[in-house]
């Protein structure tokens, strides 16, 4: 059974974004040749610099010409390229399975499109990716080895699923993922982040110890942003099925302020980790939103 990427991606739009790359803002600590520089000194022909010789250093690295000139032992450092690992975490809670109009994507479809595009970009730049889902904790986590096409296809196939009807535990999933993430990776979380900010902050702190860059894609429906409901009624939580009688006119402004405050708190939290928070409305095509973000993002 084939799981084509075209299910999620607008190929025409994708073709117009051929030069986009997901670059890390740190020095990638990998083994494969790729876009990202490694902090390890290897056999590359690129000269990086000298340092004093230390006992544990390989004597082969001593530059004898320098010794002859300066009468001191120096080690010649060489620059070596390596690849990057990107961890994608998708929130597949029931709240993601929502759209306010027929012309809009559900948030889940939107998140899947983003993930598919990112997987494709990662594959193109010969980096490796890992994919997991936030359900009842971290589920279906799979780590791609290298940039082989088979890995891309395998992870694309994992996107063919529906959003769960249950409530997700995003903070648990993020905590669990933090234990699996290797040093100096990029962690991308795609969710609506309906979590208490304290829990999210606790989860995010775990990534700071591993020198990771965390990027949060907050996907929201336009109605979730402006709460532009014309009439009131009993609002039903898609996850918990809880009910609440609400008059939209009464709380519209308060709601917008609450969303903005929560987003700002999340932005401040992620800002302390030098990460990014991108709020995406499903009214904007996912590839276009992703393109705009990647175009302005600066990395190494």
């Amino acid at each position, binding site marked *: 059974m084939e799981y084509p990427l075209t299910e999620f991606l607008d190929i025409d739009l994708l073709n117009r974004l051929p030069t986009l790359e997901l670059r890390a803002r740190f020095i990638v600590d990998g083994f494969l040749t790729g876009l990202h520089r490694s902090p390890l000194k290897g056999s590359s022909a690129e000269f990086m610099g000298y340092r004093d010789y230390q006992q544990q250093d390989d004597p082969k690295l001593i530059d004898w010409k320098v010794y002859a000139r300066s009468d001191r032992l120096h080690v010649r450092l060489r620059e070596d390229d390596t690849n990057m690992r990107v961890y994608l975490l998708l929130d597949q809670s029931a709240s993601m399975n929502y759209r306010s109009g027929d012309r809009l994507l559900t948030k889940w479809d939107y998140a899947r499109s983003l993930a598919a595009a990112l997987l494709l970009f990662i594959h193109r730049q010969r980096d490796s990716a890992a994919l997991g889902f936030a359900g009842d904790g971290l589920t279906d986590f799979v780590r791609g080895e290298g940039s082989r096409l088979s890995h891309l296809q395998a992870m694309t196939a994992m996107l063919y699923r529906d959003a769960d009807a249950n409530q997700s535990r995003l903070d648990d999933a993020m905590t669990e993922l933090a234990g699996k993430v290797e040093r100096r990776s990029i962690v991308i979380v795609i969710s609506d982040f309906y979590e208490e900010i304290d829990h999210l902050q606790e989860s995010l702190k775990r990534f700071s110890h591993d020198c990771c860059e965390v990027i949060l894609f907050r996907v929201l429906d336009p109605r979730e942003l402006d709460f532009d409901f014309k009439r009131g009624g009993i609002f039903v939580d898609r996850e918990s099925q809880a009910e609440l009688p609400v008059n939209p*006119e009464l709380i519209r402004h308060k709601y917008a302020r*609450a969303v903005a405050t929560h987003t700002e708190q999340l932005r401040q939290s992620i800002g302390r980790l030098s990460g990014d928070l991108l709020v995406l409305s499903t009214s904007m095509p996912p590839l276009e939103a992703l393109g705009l973000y990647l175009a302005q993002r600066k990395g190494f």
Partner: protein
Amino acid sequence: MMAFTSAIFLLGGLAVAVPLALHFLRRKPVVRIPFPSLFFLRAVHSPSSQRFNDLKKWLVLLLRCLAVLALAMAFALPFLPKFGHAVTGAAVILTDASLSMQSGHCGDVNHAAAELVDRLDSGTVVLAGAVGDIAVWSGGFTDQRETVKKFLLEHGRSDTGGGYENPLRQADAKLRKQPVEHRTIYLVTDRQKRAWKNVRLDTPLSPGVELRIVTPGIPSDATVSNTAVDDVRVEPVAADRRVRLAVTLANYGHDPVAGSLSVQIGKTAKNLPVKLASAGKNTVAVELPLPAAGSVPEYGQVRLDIDDDLPADNQYFFPLNVRNPPAVFLTRPPDREPDFVLTALVPDDAHACVLPHALTAATSPEALKRADICLIRSGFALTPDQVAAVQQAVRTGGGLILTWENSPSTIRLLEAFGVTVLRTEQAPGRTLTLTDINFELPPFKKFTETPTGSLYDVVFYRSPQLKFPDSADILARFAPDAPAVGLFPFGSGTVCVLAFRPDRTGTDWPVHASFVPFWHELLKQFKPRAVRNSRMTASLKPLAGEELREVERLDRAGETSELLRQGRFIPAQAGAYRLTTAAGQKLLCVNHDPEESLLAYMPENFHPETALSRPGVPPEAAADAGLPREDSDSPGRPLFLWFLVLALLCGGGELWLSNRTAL
């Protein structure tokens, strides 16, 4: 207790159903709206604010309803009644203070009006007005009846005729302001009722305003019907010898009435029931056979029998078979007087009872000698040659009718025919009535055959005390020693002396009911000198001798509005006219009944506006007399502005609150 001037606008309050209906129609069933998460909704949702919003919604609805109701009440012109008790009716009592209401009769009218005040319901406020050339009001509507009665009893007559159109319109306007169920105008007047009755047809009154005409001395006079035989037209008798009449019956009253109409020609009579709608005229066609040749009377009679109406106004004599009309040389009445006598002698062009000739200073004595009848009145001064010619005419078989005028020329003429004037006014300040009518002799014999208006109720003013020759037949008396009508031979002719002025300044004799038959019968006493078949026509309203140059109609604002005909003028509408003659300008006040119209020389300071709408009692004088002020027509303290402000406040509050409420 608040009342409303235009309570009909309260129906506008039904518009409150609109916001109520919208409120309840816009309520939609509760729907379940799926939403991704209640994470933020729970954070911002407050049950107390929801309840507060529900309260505000009801408050908005209340303000909307209040705004509509306040607006409706504002346009209903609410006010706080100034009277302490419940007012259910308002009445305007208009008394006739016109020239015809001479002193004694005026007192009767005033007393009748005062009694009428006592008979009004206790919940009725009253306003009195005396109508002469203008209306003088007692002030405003009041429940102080003694002050109104005092005004009615003390108000005298006017020196001019009555113009009732404007006073009635004013009364109607004053009544409209009164927020009561019953609005009535009472006209208290004398026997010249026809003019007043026309008011009902010619002066439109507001819906709900009832006009009642009260005549003093008539039992249950406050509620007499207002009907009249208005006109009778006789078609030429055809070969089938059937008489066809077009009888116009008028009902000037507020209510429809039913009665019977009888037409009598000699011994032939016909009765038929009639129903008269309110405030309208009906023309009834009546056909009956002509009596046998030789017995056709000279006039017939139409009588409308309505239970409680005045008989005098419901009878009409029409000329039918006037034979050998005599040539009458008659003097012109004074310019200020309508010619009732000519009305009696020449009812219409086709049925002239006489062949009238003007007797003026230029009439030749030779013509007078051939006169069948000379009618000398109004103090006309004959030249000595004319006096001699008249005496010769009477001696040779002619007739003379001499009417009283307190003038030397009349007194000399009376003495020339043997009548002595004992006193020029036998009862100063009082009115007279006939007490001793000789029904055995013509011309009153006819009155025993047909039920006409009571001759005993006819009022005379300023009549003299005369002494007739012994040969005279006294046909009627004011008192045992004061003959009213005397008939005596003079040579081979006959002289008839009327000790009164046969016009509206001398009597209130109902014209069509008994005045016309009296003159018809009186003329029979004078044989024409020769049979003449020729017929003459005469204008019912002879013009004054002065040539008219210009006639202008003055509207209420006193502005020239219309140029009528030049040279000859017959007013077609009631109103005030300025007549320009070679001698100067005159003001002509034309009432609906032309007989009430008067010509008066315009005073130098005349101003039409003040003349037509002069206010009544000046405020200062009213205060001195203890009468309400003129401006007290308002039924109380108006609340229009209060309710308008309330409506605006409610509307503004509704806008303010609805913008802060989730509806």
